[in-house]
């Protein structure tokens, strides 16, 4: 349809809509009216769709703020009743209405950092192996996929395996060392956690190491450096912040891990004396006692632990993400 005839039709159409009796009612004008109506409808749908998309953007913000708000609101009774001393209180005895979170804070920190220390050599080794020594080939590929599968195994299965296999082994060590042989405790949970968090630091470290510019490495090689010297004085310094971020992300995982730890840590709410003694982490005490909490302050104290856990993991993850984005933008 050429422009002039379209204009004519539009004039007819507007006359019709204004109530002016059109001189001729052709089949063409009807068709145009239909087409206009259809495009109006499409514009309307388009606007609705755009609004739905924006709404979805809001959903995430509301969700996170809602989580924070709920946790704060529900822990108000405990904050009001116990104050800030709650976090340093050394006894946890719900029967006597005494609540102190220190044993759980200590338990969480001990298990997470011990796990981190055990896992770092392994995850860095995987990162260097896959990033520098053998980036290509079927064997490295297999290793990469297998290490990623470590993260896929459900934590409850780690816990069950730990209970059935690892705890007796640890008990054997304890008998040999002459400590009370309980098996369950900080050490067992740290060992399980160490396995679980290897993939996080490893996969991030690998991608960071692969991003080291090859001219830097070639320059070092041309000066006569050996492979180890290149790794130590070029690759590690260059990827330092990236490796650090990977370790932070693993720490975030370790702090929040619940099921595997709950199953092997022994669940006693006393301050752990050494790495062999049973204990409790913040997550495990919530998992164990949440449905049993019969007093409002008891329940609220548990939720306050959840709030602390939430805030700590958020801060750690944010720092980690910030470091990564700064590294990749450089």
């Amino acid at each position, binding site marked *: 349809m050429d422009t002039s005839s379209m204009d004519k039709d539009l004039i007819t159409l507007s006359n019709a809509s204004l109530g002016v009796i059109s001189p001729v009612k052709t089949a063409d004008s009807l068709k145009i009216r239909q087409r206009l109506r259809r495009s109006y409808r*499409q514009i309307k*749908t*388009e606007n609705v*769709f*755009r609004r*739905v998309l*924006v709404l*979805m*953007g809001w959903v*995430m*913000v509301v*969700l996170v703020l*809602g*989580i924070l708000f*709920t*946790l704060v609101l*529900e822990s108000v009774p405990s904050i009001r009743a116990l104050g800030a001393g709650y976090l340093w209180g050394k006894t946890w005895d719900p029967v006597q209405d005494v609540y102190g979170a220190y044993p759980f804070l200590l338990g969480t920190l001990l298990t997470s950092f011990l796990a981190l220390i055990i896992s770092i050599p*392994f*995850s860095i*080794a*995987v990162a*260097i192996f*896959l990033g520098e*020594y053998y980036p290509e080939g079927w064997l490295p590929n297999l*290793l990469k*996929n297998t*290490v*990623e*599968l*470590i993260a*896929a*195994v*459900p934590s*409850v*299965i780690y*816990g*069950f*395996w730990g209970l*059935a296999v690892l705890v007796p082994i640890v008990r054997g060590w304890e008998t040999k060392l002459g400590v009370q042989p309980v098996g369950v405790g900080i050490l067992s949970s740290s060992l399980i956690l160490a396995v679980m968090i290897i993939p996080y630091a*490893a996969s991030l470290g690998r991608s960071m190491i692969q991003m080291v510019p090859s001219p830097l490495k070639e320059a070092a090689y041309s000066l006569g450096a*050996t*492979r*180890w*010297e290149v790794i130590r004085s070029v690759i590690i310094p260059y990827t330092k912040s990236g490796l650090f971020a990977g370790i932070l992300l693993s720490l*975030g995982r370790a*702090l*929040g*891990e*619940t*099921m595997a730890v709950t*199953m092997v840590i022994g669940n006693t709410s006393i301050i752990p004396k050494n790495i062999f003694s049973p204990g409790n982490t913040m*997550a495990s005490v*919530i998992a164990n006692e*949440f449905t049993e909490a019969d007093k409002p302050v008891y329940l609220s104290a548990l*939720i306050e632990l*959840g709030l602390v*856990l939430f805030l700590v993991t*958020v801060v750690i*993850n*944010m720092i980690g993400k910030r470091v990564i984005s700064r590294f990749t933008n450089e």
Partner: protein
Amino acid sequence: MTPSNIKYRIGKSRGFQVLTITLAFACVIPLLAILGFIIEAGITKINWHFLVNVPKPVGETGGGIANALLGTLIIILVAALIAIPIGILCGVYLSENKKSRLAYWSRLCVDILQGVPSIVVGIVAYFWLVKPLGGFSALSGSVALAIMMLPIVIRSTEETLKLLPDTLKEAAFALGMPFHRVILKVIIPCGISGILSGVMLSIARVAGETAPLLFTAFGNPYLSANLTKPMQSLPLLIFNYATSPYNDWHDLAWGASLILLVFVLMLNIFTKLITRKWKVQL
């Protein structure tokens, strides 16, 4: 430089290489140990009877995990129904609005949500759904799992759509297609492989989650398909039976562990094959 010095340096380099390779491959040992142990302990427990019966009370041998299988299926299905549409649309929003302020905050919240410990999600779902509805329910468990699925689905959608060339969208607009049709009929179908693998990855991740279900779906020793009542699921069953003192229940838990493990690993491997075949980057 003396030759002995060079030999020493090369030796050190070799030594470090051997150490790295040893440590790297040592990581595989625990996984193999777990796989081997679970397969050995679980394979003998699994038979037809195991799959179609509910657990027997303590003291009676036999029984199965039909209630947990059905429960896991229902809970995950409902969670996916909640999380997939919201996740994909939110991912589309983030990839369409790269610079807006809301997108910045939204992206930050997705990052935060990804790191939230699963037990915290359980607590929150308890206060949002279990308490107002007056009891533990499968629906609240599904919502908790959906919250955990969202960041993975959103991220994979956003990353996939970002990789699509702008010309694709421009061509569609030039043909006069309205915005929603461009997204639904051109952009999403083009990125479907990446979105799909994100969805599968998220399902694989939440299938083994126990902590969010402890205070929501709660567990149920009987067969139930009612969304408003407590429901058993595989991870819950494993946790409850593994920490019980009864050997019969341990046997059930080993069988259930094997099924859960195979399911989760299969989903992961399948996703990996898809991403490799369609060259998706996650």
